[in-house]
């Protein structure tokens, strides 16, 4: 079939060149002259370059070929007084300029080139590249689709080949046409205001590509509100307060991506900074923090670092206890604090921190700390350490303190 097209072409070529070749011969005074006039061949076709020789050929010339991927030497065939070179399929199936150089007896006699053009009528093969694979919502970010259409021999198709690029997002499906330039057709696929998957495909000469996806992630978070939730308002050092954000959205009302870290910073009345954090699920972050063990007011503010912040929240905590008993026993060497009774007169949950400061003539000698167990704390003031003298005490727990006048430890 291919040869069928080629033979008449060659014949026309021979007729056309007959006068011309004579002229070449006279000018060049070379032994050989080119018969083949076709300068462009379709890739994959059987390409022959033929020469005629005026003299009797003693030694057949060779043809040195150089094309896009390499060089070789091919031998001649003698056919009806014509010197025929058949271009190997390796060379004829790749497009581009193919330079040839006719060598006879080690001397370059004629050189020229033919061009191999893509085999357009063959089935087009599409190679498409999409990147980056994820982009941000809004109309700023984009993925780029690059399509390289080739013929069946993996040669890029000529300039201005039409490529259709289709994109689907939610309800909308759109198609656009791009032309190849520098072997590639390309398009910037801009992101939408909604987050979700953007599907892209392309087609060229009735060949369709596979489906490519770029994910549109929500854009950056915008400012949000926080609220809190707690069991009671007492500073018992035991319950948890929940800090909750409102659904955090980007500027396009998309809930921000799950796992965005929200950091809550808390400033108390002593200007101490407390922190807790949580990551978002469905736009909401939910962090927990232990109640303080003394009455105070917390100022809470949440941040998504560098991007967004919340309102400031005030959370007051009431004292859980108003007074407590202190008993001295065993020659004052054992001090029992308690019972520590909470807001409903229940025993305070185990683990309330109690501090005992011991003073000797107004100077602090030692601070003992202990945590409550079943509402009580027992401190031992060992006679081994505390000699016969006057000592005064201060006991602190849950935000209140009690002073005890000097006691003589003399026997």
């Amino acid at each position, binding site marked *: 079939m291919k040869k069928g097209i080629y033979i008449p072409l060659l014949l026309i070529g021979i007729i056309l060149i007959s006068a011309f070749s004579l002229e070449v011969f006279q000018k060049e005074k070379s032994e050989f002259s080119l018969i083949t006039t076709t300068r462009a061949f379709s890739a994959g076709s059987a390409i022959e370059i033929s020469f005629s020789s005026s003299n009797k050929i003693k030694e057949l010339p*060779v043809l*040195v070929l*150089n*094309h*896009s*991927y*390499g*060089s*070789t*030497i091919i031998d001649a065939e003698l056919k009806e007084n014509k010197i025929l070179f058949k271009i*190997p399929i*390796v*060379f004829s*199936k*790749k*497009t*581009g*300029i*193919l*330079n040839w*150089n006719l*060598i006879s007896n*080690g001397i*370059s006699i004629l050189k020229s080139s033919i061009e191999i053009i893509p085999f357009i009528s063959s089935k087009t093969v599409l190679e498409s*590249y999409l*990147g*980056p694979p994820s982009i941000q919502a809004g109309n700023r970010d*984009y*993925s*780029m689709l*690059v399509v*390289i259409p*080739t013929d069946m021999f*993996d*040669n*890029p198709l000529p300039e201005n080949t039409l490529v259709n690029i289709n994109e689907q997002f939610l309800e909308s499906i759109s198609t656009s046409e791009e032309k190849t*330039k*520098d*072997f*590639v057709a*390309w398009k*910037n696929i801009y992101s939408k205001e909604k987050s979700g998957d953007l599907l892209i495909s392309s087609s060229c000469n009735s060949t369709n590509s596979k489906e490519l996806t770029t994910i549109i992630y929500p854009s950056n978070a915008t400012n949000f509100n926080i609220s809190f939730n707690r069991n009671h308002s007492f500073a018992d050092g035991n319950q948890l307060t929940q800090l909750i954000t409102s659904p955090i959205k980007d500027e396009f009302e998309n809930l921000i991506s799950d796992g965005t870290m929200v950091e809550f910073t808390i400033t108390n009345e002593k200007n101490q900074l407390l922190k807790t954090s949580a990551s978002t699920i469905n736009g909401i972050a939910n962090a927990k923090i232990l109640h303080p063990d003394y009455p105070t007011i917390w100022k809470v503010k949440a941040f998504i670092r560098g991007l967004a912040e919340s309102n400031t929240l005030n959370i007051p905590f009431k004292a859980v206890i108003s007074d407590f008993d202190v008993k001295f026993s065993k020659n004052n060497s054992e001090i029992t604090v308690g019972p520590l009774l909470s807001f409903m007169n229940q025993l305070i949950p185990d683990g309330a921190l109690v501090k005992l400061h011991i003073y000797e003539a107004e100077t602090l000698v030692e601070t003992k700390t202990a945590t409550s167990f079943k509402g009580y704390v027992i401190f031992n003031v060992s006679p081994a350490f505390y000699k016969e003298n006057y000592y005064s005490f201060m006991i602190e727990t849950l935000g209140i303190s009690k002073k005890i006048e000097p006691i003589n430890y003399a026997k």
Partner: protein
Amino acid sequence: MQNKFNKHIYRGILILSFIVINVLILYGITSVLAYLKTGADRSTMLHTELKSENVYLPKITWTNLENPGRTISKQELKSLQDNYLKSWYIKNIAYATNNPYGIDDFYTDSSRVPIFETIKLNKKQHITVDATTIRHQPKLDFYSEDGKLAVITDENVIEFQHIYKDHKLVLTSTDTNSYKIILLLEDGFWRIRHKVKIKNEITTDSITKNAFSEIINDKIIIDGKPFITKGINYYPQETPWDMFGDLFDIKIIENDFQLIKNTGLNSIRIFIQYEDFGKEQVLPEKLQKLQQVLDAAERQQLKVIVTLFDFYGDYSVLNWTLTHRHAEQIVTAFKNHKAILAWDLKNEPDLDFDSRHKETVTAWLTTLIQEIKKFDPNHLITIGWSSPEAASNLVNEVDFVSYHYYKNIDNFESDFQLLKNTTHNKPLVLQEFGVTSYGGFWNLFQSSKTNQANYHKKMQAIFKKDSLAFLSWGLYDFKSIPTSVVGRLPWRKKPQQFYGFLDLDKNKKPSFLYISN
């Protein structure tokens, strides 16, 4: 009894061989296991172990980086360029050896197919191709947003190739081709995806000339006047063949230059050793020393012929680009230096014809001339052929023809005439001649200081009669000659020491009278 004894021997051999076989089997199994346990180092996946040795350095100039896609950063461009050039290098090696080693790293699955097929074809017919590219002028047409795909057009790539069949050279060619190329970034390598040879864009070279000298017929003209080289080959006495080494002392050199100037000479010829100057990475301190030497020559009004590539002998096509970078760095640095008369590309390259093939050596020289002309269009170019016969090579390529003459002085005039007839009226410079004054055991007491003086007297008479250009060998006698110059043999080394006009103690020898005319 005998029988029983034999039986024991057999039994012994049997048991012994059983043990030996078992040991061997065990050894085999353990070594197989040991081998299987040594896997590839995981870091090799990242290709961090690749040595970035300079193996291929054709001149590459990016003409345009503006593209409709992403802006390319310097770092990205560097790795793209590096991988792109390596794709040429690897391909050139593959075609030279018909072994596709390494092609996988720089060509994608489908684009390596035509290379493999061509290699198969060439291997079957015993065709090999020695090729190199000399110049690349790529422009970036397109760089994708994700930085993984690039399209470049490499315009007017100058390609050189020797193509052999059955080890016989069929064609030497230098072509200019343009390519459009798609590269993909795959696992850390830029690989060629498509490569198509396209029509050349016609570009005009804009070289601005600032020539210090010109050639009119057979004369070198400087400042409008014919310049007849009267000169001498120069090495400092203490550091022969190592002029720019650690013992470099510009004061000694300048004093020598003054001495040369005072004798009435107007030129010197100096040598630059390829490896000494740092090969493809020319050392800045060497350039500085050369600068000092040239400045000193300019102060003494001496013209300098700078001989490049001394002691270079590789010539292999694949390494040409390295020599081009060497030459580029030197000639570019001094393209505006007035003291330089000419670049002498190579001292006596014809001596390498046998070992390195004449075609390769002359092709290297021709290409090098074209390259140097691009980097320094201001100075003349010559090649220091070892004899008048050899000097008929590349006559059309050089600006003036240089030749050496160490043969019988009586034949000089006829040899000169022969050369004159073959060199199409180009200026001729006798770049080296001389005779040793050594008359000792190693040359059978054949020479003497008087002999040497007579020789120079005769030569100078000829030069004067026909106004010939000359540079004699050389100013000094040397205490020692490096082995790399004439080898170890004393009958070659010894005479070489005593070619000077000044002896070892810097006293004038009788020949000094005839140093010039």
